[in-house]
């Protein structure tokens, strides 16, 4: 026993030293992670258990805020709206992104480097600018789309009334994030060993067949990543409704999206506590939905494997 300790001592010391170095290296991250994420999160959890009234001050109310939120039609209205958004917009956006990524990857498109950049530019445009720009494009009186429609004798299309605003917003978000998702998928496509589809090509498989049977299955994890990002992004929509609110104040209600609702609760209604509860429920909801998506896809994968 004693001899083992002596022979192992140098290694143990080195190991300990290495461990210390490792901790030292991750310390900055953990410091920022703790102060900027864990502490504020804990604080909002704490806040969400209180009620602060203009008359009567602060009192501990336990889970009352959560109970109220679970019966709040405005909150669920926002969630429902985002569910529609998710079901309609995300497949379109990811479908277009996948198509573009495959097109670029096929090498058939000329100037693919330039194209890649062009598709990616909207993502580089700040969301604020993008929304303002689309606000102008959608404009009823002076927007180019409206002017064009009138010039060819059509009725002025309305993009910004309460019936069409969700669709208009889907369009803005799609435009903004197609390039971003495309880049993720494209990067995954580039990492597929070329031997795989050279072999398929030799066997006489068409490009469409290669894409469907080799490329798409191969980049499944990347696609799943974009789906999860999109789910989270959708339920957290804030910039677009907040900015469109100034352009189309009647089409965007205070609870248009859950995040916008939490913001309005905190800063207009001055109900920070309830806003914290809403934010927490939203976070929980997103976690559950993301997990379900991941689970569903994992099950799908297993089924595919077993059927092979």
């Amino acid at each position, binding site marked *: 026993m004693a001899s083992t300790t002596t022979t192992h001592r140098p290694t143990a010391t080195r190991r300990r030293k290495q461990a210390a170095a490792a901790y030292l290296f991750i310390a900055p991250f953990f410091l920022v992670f703790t102060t900027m994420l864990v502490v504020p999160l804990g604080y909002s959890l704490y806040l969400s258990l209180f009620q602060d009234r203009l008359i009567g001050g602060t009192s501990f109310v336990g889970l009352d805020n959560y109970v109220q939120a679970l019966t709040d039609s405005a909150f669920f209205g926002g969630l429902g709206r985002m569910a529609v958004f998710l079901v309609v917009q995300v497949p379109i956006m990811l479908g277009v992104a996948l198509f573009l990524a495959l097109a670029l990857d096929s090498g058939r498109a000329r100037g693919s480097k330039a194209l890649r950049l062009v598709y990616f530019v909207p993502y580089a445009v700040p969301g604020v600018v993008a929304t303002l720009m689309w606000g102008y494009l959608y404009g009823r009186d002076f927007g180019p789309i409206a002017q064009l429609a009138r010039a060819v004798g059509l009725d002025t299309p309305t993009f910004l009334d309460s019936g069409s605003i969700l669709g208009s917003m889907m369009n803005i978000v799609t435009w903004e994030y197609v390039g971003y998702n495309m880049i993720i998928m494209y990067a995954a496509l580039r990492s597929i060993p070329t031997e795989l589809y050279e072999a398929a090509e030799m066997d006489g498989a068409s490009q469409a067949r290669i894409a469907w049977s080799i490329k798409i299955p191969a980049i499944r994890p990347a696609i799943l990543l974009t789906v999860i990002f999109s789910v989270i992004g959708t339920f957290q929509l804030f910039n677009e409704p907040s900015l469109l609110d100034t352009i189309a*104040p*009647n089409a965007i209600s205070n609870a248009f999206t859950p995040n916008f609702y939490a913001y309005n609760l905190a800063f207009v209604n001055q109900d920070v506590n309830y806003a914290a509860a809403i934010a927490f429920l939203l976070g929980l909801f997103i976690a559950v939905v993301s997990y379900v998506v991941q689970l569903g896809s994992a099950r799908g994968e297993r089924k595919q494997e077993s059927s092979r």
Partner: protein
Amino acid sequence: MKKAPRTALAMATSAAILGMTLAGCSSGGGEDDTAGSEPVSQADIDEALQTPTELTFWTWVPDIEDEVALFEAAYPAIDVTVENVGQGLDHYQKVRTALEAGDGAPDVIQVEYQYIPSFTLTDSLLDLTPYGAADISGDYVDWAWNQVSSDEGIWAIPQDIGPMGNLYRSDIMAQAGVTEPPATYADYATAAEQVRSATGSYISNLPSNDPAQVTGLLWQAGVRPWSWDGDQTVSIDVNSPEAQEVMTYWQDLIDRDLVGTDADFNDAFYQGLSTGTYAGWLTAAWGPIFLQGTAEATSGQWSAAPLPQWEEGQEVSGNWGGSTDAVLSTTENPIAAAALAQFINHDPESTALFANQQFLFPASTELLADESFTGSEVAFFGGQKVNELFAGIAETVDTDFTWLPFMEFVYSSFNETVGTAIGDRGDLVGALDDWQAQIVRYAEDQGFTVE
């Protein structure tokens, strides 16, 4: 969130307006209710104003540094830092956040009339009475002074006001055969019909997102949609018969497509004003200058008149906009801060500068009576003495309109209910009921007793 026990002082802020005495109604605690009411001797004031002091002033008024420079020239020991932290809700959010945090709050803030009660409710404003504010109470238009003061104290100094009038395109009106500005709302409806059929223009726009303008119109009609006793009781009556009457009137114009219902202060609205989509605008005293910047090409074609009246022969108006300067009770330099708030809004040179450089419509009666201000003939309005007209209107604003201590919610709720009904050309009177219900629910949730 810390909330000190409310004192009689703070709770009774607007009791004067309701003629109620509230001493003893408070929930106890009295340590901090002397801060604002201790007499301050002239010697103390003189000494403080000669002691090197640094003040921070949060305001969105452009180039207000010029008025502040006049103050610094008069009191060289005091150094003022002007910071613009945003306008409207952004500004108030930041002030409230700083107050909550207990650190980083400025000494002096810009605050609009309707938000003063929300700050007195939380004991956040310094009573300016001991610092000489009582001596200048007669120097501002009555109703503006009523809005900044109560029996319990003086909470802010008025800077500018927005008494409402009717700006209209005289050329479009003439084209439709309307040669005189409509004297009553009945005339206004008739004129609206003529203008619409003869020129295709709307006589004006009733915005779907502007609670402040609609409140001004209700104010003119004698509607008292809400009141607060300065303590825990509010009364809410936004769907009163009088308010319904006003909304029924506008409903009729909207249903007959005689008035626009677009959101205001966006591109489409500016274009509407400059291209004649709207032949007029029921706006405030700051409107004439605003319009000159927005609809430059139509210079010389505009005229100004008082608002149409509900009864023939009346002369009543409401107010839309304007703001004040207040001192936060957390300030460490109350004397210097109070001096700043008073000086820039009382010194004749400073108030004249506000009126002539920033084009703020003055709350100071001296300036409103000053020939050099009222006498100017404005080419944009065909040489009309617009300032004189609005100075006259300022006298006709009803004096006993008050605000709730949570106007942010009230206004946001307006947009969700009445505003949406206007924009969708829906049921305005029904929307008043929804607005009422939302405000009542919020007030009860916040612990107020709703009468």
